């Protein structure tokens, strides 16, 4: 091409510049804003070392990854059956990853080889397994991880696609394992990393079905009839009424950009996720690679997730809700961000 240009240069300078312009345009168009051309990492990329994944409990998120080439990432999860409060008066026998609902947040990078060891506590009554939606492979890993109490299973997968993915137990009957709280999130950062923000938090919505009414006293049994009818008693963020409100509200400051990684474990309900007193400036719709902007309420499918960002601009308490609003008012589907800082009267001003 260059040689052709050299020849053309002397005879037809116009043609040369046209050719140059066309070729430049061709190369420039390869780098599109949505990054779709980079959406799949190469499976034969050499791994440059082994790291152990930092696992966190909600609402905390592991620190942004600093490595820029694919690694082998060691992930160890333990399934634990545990009685915990679900509301002020009620307790429930939760089945968990890591002793909490939702389970640990896992953060890896596109192209990583993820090495998963699943241990089932010897005190468990049930067998458990794991299906990670980030896995392309039989049952998302559940085929390799049917784990009896006291035993350990092991498998690896290559995380070729970026996104925020749900993981959950997939031992039969799957709906019961999910209904008891066995879900969490795994973030596969795109190759360039997630853009930097000031704060990141982890929320996961779930619906719960009990024989007793909402906040009835004592240990509550699972109600299969209500679960089949998709009529929950509790719709909660992070597995407990008031888990993330009042003194447990997520802190933020005026001027900061806050990103929320929000999953929906279900088992049944879709969430209409809304921030009262705020607007989502960026929504990674369904936690995929497309970005929507300036959204009031976004849907989180059951067994799906979303990533939203907001700019904190006034001091306020932001109520994060499922806007199927009876769930927020009467069944517990509220979390809060408490924003502190200077007032901004040109943006919002109460008048006498």
């Amino acid at each position, binding site marked *: 091409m260059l040689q052709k240009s050299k020849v053309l240069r002397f005879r037809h300078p116009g043609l040369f510049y046209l050719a140059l312009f066309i070729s430049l345009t061709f190369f420039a168009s390869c780098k599109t804003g949505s990054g779709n051309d980079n959406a799949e990492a190469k499976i034969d990329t050499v791994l440059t070392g082994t790291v152990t994944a930092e696992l966190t409990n909600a609402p905390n998120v592991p620190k942004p990854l600093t490595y820029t080439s694919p690694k082998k990432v060691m992930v160890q999860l333990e399934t634990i059956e545990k009685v915990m409060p679900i509301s002020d008066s009620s307790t429930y*026998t939760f089945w968990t990853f890591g002793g909490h609902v939702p389970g640990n947040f896992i953060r890896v990078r596109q192209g990583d080889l993820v090495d998963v060891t699943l241990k089932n506590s*010897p005190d468990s009554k049930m067998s458990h397994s794991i299906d990670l939606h980030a896995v392309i492979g*039989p*049952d998302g890993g559940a085929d390799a991880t*049917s784990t009896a109490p006291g035993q350990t299973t092991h498998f690896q997968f290559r995380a070729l696609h970026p996104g925020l993915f749900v993981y959950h137990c997939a031992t*039969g*009957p*799957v709906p*019961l394992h999910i209904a008891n709280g066995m879900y969490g999130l795994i973030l596969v950062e795109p190759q360039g990393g997630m853009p930097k923000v000031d704060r990141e938090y982890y929320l996961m919505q779930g619906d719960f079905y009990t024989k007793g009414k909402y906040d009835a006293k004592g240990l509550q049994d699972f109600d299969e009839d209500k679960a089949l009818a998709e009529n929950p008693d509790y719709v909660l963020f992070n597995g407990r009424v008031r888990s993330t409100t009042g003194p447990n509200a997520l802190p933020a400051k005026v001027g900061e950009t806050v990103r929320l990684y929000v999953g929906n474990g279900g088992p049944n309900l879709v969430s209409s996720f809304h921030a009262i007193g705020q607007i989502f400036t960026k929504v990674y719709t369904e936690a995929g690679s497309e970005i929507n902007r300036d959204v009031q309420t976004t849907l989180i499918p059951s067994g799906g997730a979303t990533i939203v960002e907001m700019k904190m601009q006034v001091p306020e308490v932001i109520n994060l809700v499922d806007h199927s609003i009876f769930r927020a008012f009467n069944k517990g589907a509220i979390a809060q961000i408490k924003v502190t800082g200077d007032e901004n009267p040109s943006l919002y001003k109460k008048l006498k």
Partner: protein
Amino acid sequence: MVKWLTIIMITAFSFAASAQKKAVISSGKMVVVSSGSYLPFFVTQNNKTLPVPAFQMDETAVTNAEYLEFVKANPQWRRSKVYRLFADTNYLRHWKSDLSINGTKKDIDNSPVVNVSWFAAEAYAKWKNKRLPTIAEWELAAKGTPKNIGRKSLTDYILDWYTKPNLAKLPHVKSTYQNQYGLYDMNGLIWEWTFNFNSFIGSRDSRGNNEDELKNFCAGGALNVADKSDYATFLRFSFRGSLKGNYCISGLGFRCAKDL
């Protein structure tokens, strides 16, 4: 003099009575489960209702005390001597030592023995001239109508037990319900080994073999379950499917069966 004699006699009698009570709790007695049919939980084209001929079954699960007699007579099955191939590192971990269940305490003598592998259970059954029940036999026996469980259905009762955490100390046998066959605690105490504990799982390699794919118990493949809302049975089969023969688990024991 008479007063002392009376006291001695009463004491002796109460000793005898309590010893007698222990014998009644775990007597190794077997009951007859009459013939019936079993509809396999996973239904495929090959599987139909299975006829199950009548058989005998242990009235209760095998207890710690009964299992102690077994290891006394069979040193190769003592905790410190057992082959790792036949029982993993959790074998009898709830016992104080090879030949001591809980030291001087008798509190779990009559509780079901747990932390025993399938191989160990098989060996015990053979020692007693018995065998382990098949899944079909066990399921037929377990579906026997309960005598007074205080729940609206047996499924409800079972699910309630399954979704409560394991107890730190297992209650003794006969502490839950009895069913129409005279069997105690078929549900509500422990999981129980069966002879063919995972024969319902097909090969996971599904290259061109659709029949095996359908048989795959994995939850996503629940297509061929006869009653999908029977969560209690589903949990039991999932548990069985995760087992290997040398596993020793703190909620898993066994009882024996015998042909008529």
